[in-house]
């Protein structure tokens, strides 16, 4: 019988570190290709259609980047939180809370010129996302309530709250009966950055935020504290680093990023709040952060990658008559393969023959 065992590498070779995510993606694509064959289509042609659908024209490219915008922001939310080992699974709820704040303040309650209105909405959205997370952080810090459970469950509460508001008090009377919020005033709408496409200023802002987060995490005392608390909270606290304050800041930053994703979707893409504002962008952010190994700059690339799969899969589905759910399968397989590839990066696999044990 052939057995194997993992042995930790003293040092991982550089070529392996760089190559491993690409190999992982390749393996995921091959595995998903088998499913495409099962669905009765030619995998090469299907993937061709997927790439064309995501990058083939100005419009599709813009659509991919527009779709990447909220995913990059929720990816940043997960990256910041996971670095400090604060498991915020609630980006979906924080996104919707940011969207609620945008609707509340941005549909006429506050009127400012555009240059002020847009930053104002982003600040409001970030505060809303952060505030939603605040009670959960306090529960964790004071009573050790597991944040995985609380952040996850609060997602459903927030989505139901949005549903209640859109079906009831916040329903736009001009919407012909559709459950949607009032339109964001013109001053608050994020301008297009590519004419005749849906790509809006939110994409540029999300890139800017990714660089800012990278900057904060790598150059400032706050970033240093977040890193030390995440890597070894006990040692950090023995060196006088305030754990409580650091985790609080992490949560506010993380919730803030997800809240801003709600702003870009409400004020950028649609112009108003709907119940299907986010088809799971909050959860996609976790996959994006994992793919990027929690690196904020990497989140930009993995966010665009994920968005291209989702956008391209729609085109593939239409052209090849295969289910769009393949997009979810490809994403899930990619995340699994990346996680597995990390094992290979850090460990060597030793095979050995073992005699039958008795």
């Amino acid at each position, binding site marked *: 019988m052939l057995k194997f*065992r993992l*042995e930790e*590498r*003293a*040092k991982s070779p550089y070529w392996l570190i760089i190559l491993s995510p690409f190999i992982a993606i390749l393996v995921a694509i091959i595995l998903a290709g088998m499913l495409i064959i099962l669905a009765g289509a030619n995998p090469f042609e299907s993937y061709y259609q997927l790439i064309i659908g995501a990058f083939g024209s100005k419009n599709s490219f813009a659509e991919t980047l527009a779709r990447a915008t909220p995913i990059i922001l929720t990816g940043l939310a997960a990256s910041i939180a996971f670095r400090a080992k604060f498991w915020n699974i609630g980006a979906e709820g924080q996104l919707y809370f940011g969207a609620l704040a945008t609707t509340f303040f941005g549909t006429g309650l506050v009127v400012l010129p555009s240059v002020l209105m847009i930053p104002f909405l982003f600040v409001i959205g970030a505060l809303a996302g952060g505030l939603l997370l605040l009670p959960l952080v306090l529960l964790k810090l004071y009573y050790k309530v597991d944040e995985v459970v609380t952040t996850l469950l609060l997602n459903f509460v927030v989505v139901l709250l949005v549903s209640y508001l859109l079906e009831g008090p916040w329903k736009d009377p001009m919407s012909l009966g559709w459950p949607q919020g009032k339109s964001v005033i013109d001053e608050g709408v994020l301008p297009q950055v590519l004419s005749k496409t849906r790509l809006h200023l939110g994409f540029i802002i999300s890139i800017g935020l990714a660089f800012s987060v990278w900057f904060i995490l790598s*150059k*400032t*005392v*706050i970033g*240093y*504290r977040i*890193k*030390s608390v995440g*890597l*070894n909270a*006990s*040692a*950090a*606290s*023995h*060196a*006088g*680093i*305030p754990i409580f304050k650091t985790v609080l800041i992490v949560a506010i930053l993380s919730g803030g990023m997800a809240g801003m994703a709600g702003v870009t979707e409400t004020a950028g893409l649609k112009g108003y709040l709907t119940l299907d504002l986010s088809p799971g962008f909050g959860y996609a952010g976790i996959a994006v952060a994992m793919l990027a190994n929690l690196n904020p700059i990497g989140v930009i690339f993995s966010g665009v990658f994920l968005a291209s799969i989702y956008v391209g899969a729609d085109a593939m589905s239409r052209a090849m008559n295969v289910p769009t759910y393949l997009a979810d399968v490809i994403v899930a397989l990619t995340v699994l393969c990346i996680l597995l590839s990390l094992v290979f990066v850090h460990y060597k696999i*030793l095979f*050995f023959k*073992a*005699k039958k*044990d008795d």
Partner: protein
Amino acid sequence: MTTLLKVEKITKKFGDFYANKEISFEVKKNEVLAILGENGAGKTTLMNILFGHYTPDAGNVSFEGNTIEFGNTNNAIKLGIGMVHQHFTLAENLTVLENIIIGRQSIFSLSLPKRQARIKILELSKKFGLPIDPDELVANLSVSEKQRIEILKTLFLDCKLLILDEPTAALTPQETDSLFSTIRNMIKTGLSVILISHKLNEILAVSDRIIVLRNGSSVGETDTNSAERQKIAEMIVGKKIEYPQKTKIPRKSKVLSLLDVSYNKADAQRLSSVNLNLYGGQILGIAGVAGNGQTTLAKILSGHLKATQGSIVFEEVGSVHISPKSFMDLGVAYIPEDRNSDGIVGDMEIWENAIMTEMDDSFFRNSLGFINKKNSFDRSRNLCETYDVRMQSIRQRSRLLSGGNVQKLLLGRWLMREPKIIIACQPTRGLDEGAIASIQKLLLEAQQNNSAIILISEDLDELLSMSDDIAVMYKGMLSNPIETRTTNKLSIGLQMAGDGF
């Protein structure tokens, strides 16, 4: 005497690093072979190869003339090699009997053959002088009793060669003596023992032969009878060791006192009405078997825990807000006993660890919160130079440092702050003789600078040579300190076992 185990030219590489390089030795029947070496010398790798956890790159091992198949623990056990790890591998919620027999059963068997097992265990227990109650829950046992179970577990599998990894780490001197007499008993009945330890005195007391490993190679072998302590210590480190000499200085004014301090919450060991006075320039040693409240005491003294009753008084300030940071600002330095999990952030670079206590100092950050890298680097280099932290670069990840260098980095980080009070928990545990000497020297120098030091240690030799006064902890109580020169190892040992409480 016949040869039981023969190890020939074992080599094991991790990448370019030789963990073991052409190590050869023999274990004869009826002998205790001690393997000495500092952390990272290759002791554990070597034992893992013998016990089947690792496959070596080259070399041969034969047991009773048969070549051992590598990488197969079951095979090692079947041949008669048993190992007791430093950290026990017992299931606390099972009885002694169940623990001993459980690993040997297929997970698909529905019942345990308890009756025959019980007879065999009781026989072994009697034969080797290892008294146990087979029906007691393991959770209710003391450390030394658990160790007995671990040893019985290997004997139950008919082991012929017993490997003990740091067996005395958590024992009182009396328990250590009794373990050694058990080992002597085993030798008489035909077993052989490999003893891995860094406590030289114990090795000299119990072993027949000593092998010293350094940097993965075997650097010396000697009969214990003809061994000299100093020489072996130097063989382990590879250079001359200068042990620090204590010079007593007159006691300064009182800096800290604990008044009737108790702690009785479930998240830490209990304390019951501890009183303590600490003076500048004093080293107060605290002896005790691990787990009798020393950790709680240290945490209360450093602001990590708030006493449930009683008060802690800093002489110049009076009472104070309880937090690690505010205690640090008052001049308290805390060396936690587990330097890897509570001291250093292994995945951060050396410079990042070196300035971790200083993040509020405007010298290392500007008003916008950016880290001043130049000053941080300068300070880190300065620290590593002053306190002899050996590294390749301050940008190196800290986990790659040896235990001694980690401790020098942590202690240096505190000493840079010129602390008034140092709480040192097991500061030299697990370190090699060279590092022990440097850490002790640094602490004694701090004392000369009028720091008050609380030295919590399980190493009685260390306590006796370093402290001005010694107190003993037992079940959360602290005895009155006595002057070190008026006491001795035996009477402290008795107190550690509960005498006088």
